[in-house]
């Protein structure tokens, strides 16, 4: 048995197939000296295979978007400077059925979530450049830097809907007719992966992004069968939004808190210009400390006009230093 195992949980929107998504995430974490302007070199990466750390990927994008994956991946590592255009947004980010709020609370959730994210000041959209390559696939969105304003708004709307389906445990029917109770399904999937991880390593390090951070917190705090996790990374997370916290608070409690029964350490990574976490990027003041344990908030730079990109967060020197510390490896 290895000392550590990593479990990744992805974020919002349509994704490439699981193995490709994992490859992109591993690339993002391992590439050396990724952006000298944002993070001066040297900035060594962390290759989990080289460090002898097994990793598992918790994948759930198929619940919303089915399995109609793209098959061409040749260019996705070149897509950092590509631009997502409104015209092909559905192809890139996937089509989601509009939410049908059943009551005032659900309606308010959708409106407030979206409003708070759109209210965040974010870097300006790129000037129109007809020669800029256009993002055409979900894999490319995973590393894209440039999103025009209308595209950002559309993705935020999608984030609100995904959060809604999850937090209110709505039944979602995919295009192919398959139905899921979203919160239950996503909880089960993560629990299954965590169980497997527990068999591979003595300590689990959970690295989660965006919507995936909600699933992770929910499982750690609200699922009694959740195995112990050593370190939780929440990256670009909407867990600071009050309306999200209201739906995650544990039974019998009046405030979200540190899930001390299942978690040793929680590190929250944010870029204040990331719209998904920007409304309230710091959690230490929201999640009640328990037994002396509280969230460690850490500001990290992203770049481009879309400051939510996971592979950019993975390039961060502070983030990499914390991951290395959590895994007991040396950055070189």
């Amino acid at each position: 048995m290895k000392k550590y195992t990593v479990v990744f949980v992805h974020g919002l929107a349509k994704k490439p197939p699981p193995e490709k998504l994992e490859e992109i995430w591993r690339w993002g974490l391992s590439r050396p000296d990724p952006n000298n302007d944002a993070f001066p070199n040297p900035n060594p990466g962390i290759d989990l295979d080289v460090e002898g750390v097994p990793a598992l990927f918790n994948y759930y994008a198929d619940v919303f978007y089915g399995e109609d994956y793209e098959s061409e991946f040749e260019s996705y590592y070149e897509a950092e400077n590509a631009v997502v255009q409104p015209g092909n947004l559905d192809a890139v980010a996937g089509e989601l059925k509009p939410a049908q709020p059943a009551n005032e609370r659900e309606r308010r959730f959708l409106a407030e979530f979206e409003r708070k994210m759109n209210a965040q000041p974010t870097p300006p959209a790129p000037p129109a450049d007809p020669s800029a390559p256009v993002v055409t696939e979900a894999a490319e969105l995973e590393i894209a830097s440039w999103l025009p304003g209308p595209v950002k708004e559309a993705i935020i709307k999608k984030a609100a809907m995904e959060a809604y389906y999850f937090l209110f445990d709505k039944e979602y029917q995919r295009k192919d007719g398959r139905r899921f109770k979203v919160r239950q399904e996503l909880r089960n999937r993560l629990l299954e992966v965590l169980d497997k991880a527990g068999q591979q390593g003595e300590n689990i390090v959970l690295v989660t992004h965006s919507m995936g951070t909600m699933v992770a917190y929910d499982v750690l705090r609200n699922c009694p069968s959740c195995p112990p996790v050593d370190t939780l990374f929440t990256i670009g997370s909407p867990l600071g939004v009050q309306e999200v916290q209201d739906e995650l608070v544990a039974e019998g409690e009046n405030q979200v808190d540190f899930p001390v029964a299942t978690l040793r350490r929680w590190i929250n990574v944010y870029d204040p210009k990331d719209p998904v976490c920007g409304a309230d990027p710091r959690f230490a003041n929201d999640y009640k400390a328990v037994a002396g344990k509280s969230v460690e908030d850490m500001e990290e730079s992203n770049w481009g006009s879309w400051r939510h990109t996971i592979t950019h967060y993975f390039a961060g020197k502070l983030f990499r230093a914390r991951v290395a510390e959590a895994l007991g490896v040396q950055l070189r």
Partner: protein
Amino acid sequence: MNPQTVEALSSQLKRGEYGDPPLQLLAEAAQRIADELAVPSARTTQQEIRSAMQVLNRHRHFDLTRLIGQAWHDTRGCDARVQKHLAQALIELGAFDAADGLLDEAIQQATGSANLEFVAEAPEYQGLRGRVRKQKFVQGGDVNLLRAATDAYLQQYIATGALWHGVNVIALRLREDRHGLPARGGDSVPQLARAVLEKARDAGRRNARDPWSLAIACEACLALQDTEPAAGWCDQSELWLYRFLAHPAADPFAIESYYRQLREVWNGNPLGTDSCVDRLAGIIERHVARTQRRWSVDPRSAMDLAKHPEELEKNFSGEKAFTVGDLRNMLALCPSIGCVIDASGVRMGTGFLMAGSAFGLQFDLVFVTNAHVISDTVPRSLRPEEARITFETESVSAGAPRAHIIDRVLFTSEPEEVGRVLEKPEKLDVTIVSLKTLPADVKGLARATNIPLPAPTTKAFLVGHPRAGPLQFSVHDSLLLDVCRYERIMHYRTPTEAGSSGSPVFNSKWEVVALHHAGSQKARRLNGPGEYQANEGITLRAIRRAMGAEG
């Protein structure tokens, strides 16, 4: 079909056949032949020994040629061809004085005996003598040796007209001019170079399968560029070089041999921009990096690069095989990697310096190698008191070879068969020693804290002194295949050669993960049934565990 037994393989070698056998089996077959010679009544014939040595040299198993040749020489005396093959092997292994002694003995036979076999081989002996002088000149800079080398090649060229010797005469005469040695009579260098070029062109037309005439033509043009700088010979030289590199028979060994000639005799610097030879060296360097994902560096270049790291950026920033950061890290390893030699200077293996604390030892630095390279008990290994350790970077800085002797053996564990995974007892094929003296300002190699996971992208890189030549970085096809369940042994596909024993095995962060010890074309898989071609290393974790430095 490859022979599967030592007996069958030794018979095959004695017939002059090779068939790409597993290295371990080959070593055992050579030992068997050598052992046969110890028996006076053995039926092994002179012709069989000659054939075996010739085929082993052709495939660059110089250590095995030496084993058989030495056994012959000790029991049967001087034979015209055995002596030649043995001297060739010793030169390749770096034992120049021992080779010189053999050549003197053979030349004496050629002049003083009626045995015409010695007379027929005499030009070869002279050519080899030239090679010895040339290598010793390269090593120590003594111009008397340069002169002697030129004389020996010239004698051979006049006697046989062999192009290879002719081009050496040209290259060495230009070195003589640079050193201000008295001018020679006879044909001038340009005349010689034109003649060699013409013959090389002709040889290339007659035998398209031979790549050497292309390299010789390249070198002849290089000499003409030196003497007629405005005539555009450098472009011609470059053209011949590209033809040579593109030739299907120009294998890594052929390319390395020519590259060594450009570096050592012509002072070519792949990172320089001043001269035609620098241009050629740069072309070869990039070709090797791109096609073989292998990188050799001689100590002088390593030191130059360490002083001028911006050169790396300039020369390698367009390469995808390595990043500039990789190259910088690789250069930093060189001073800590050493060569184990015997008293005659023959290279027996590789080894490396690490902090003693890595093994729970109270020494600043310790030297790590295989037990089958240095041991008091393992057959055919060097006794610690006979072993010498050299570090090329240090020797080049000092201008002369520097040898370090062993103070004491701190830990040793005998070898185990390749692919054998036992929980206990652990046989780790390692010897860790302290040295009486150490090279200055060397920190030792970094230790990896974790064992990598086998995956399609996980690499295991080897750095060592394969046979002859500069420190070589094996990064071609360097896949980590598997790790045993006790994390004691790892298998990798990284190509290795004799002389690689004791090499550090690195992860892609250039931290040492294992000690290379053997390879086999039919290694037992570490997990599950079956066999595959693999090289094997002992993890540092296992060594540390055995020494009580890790729980």
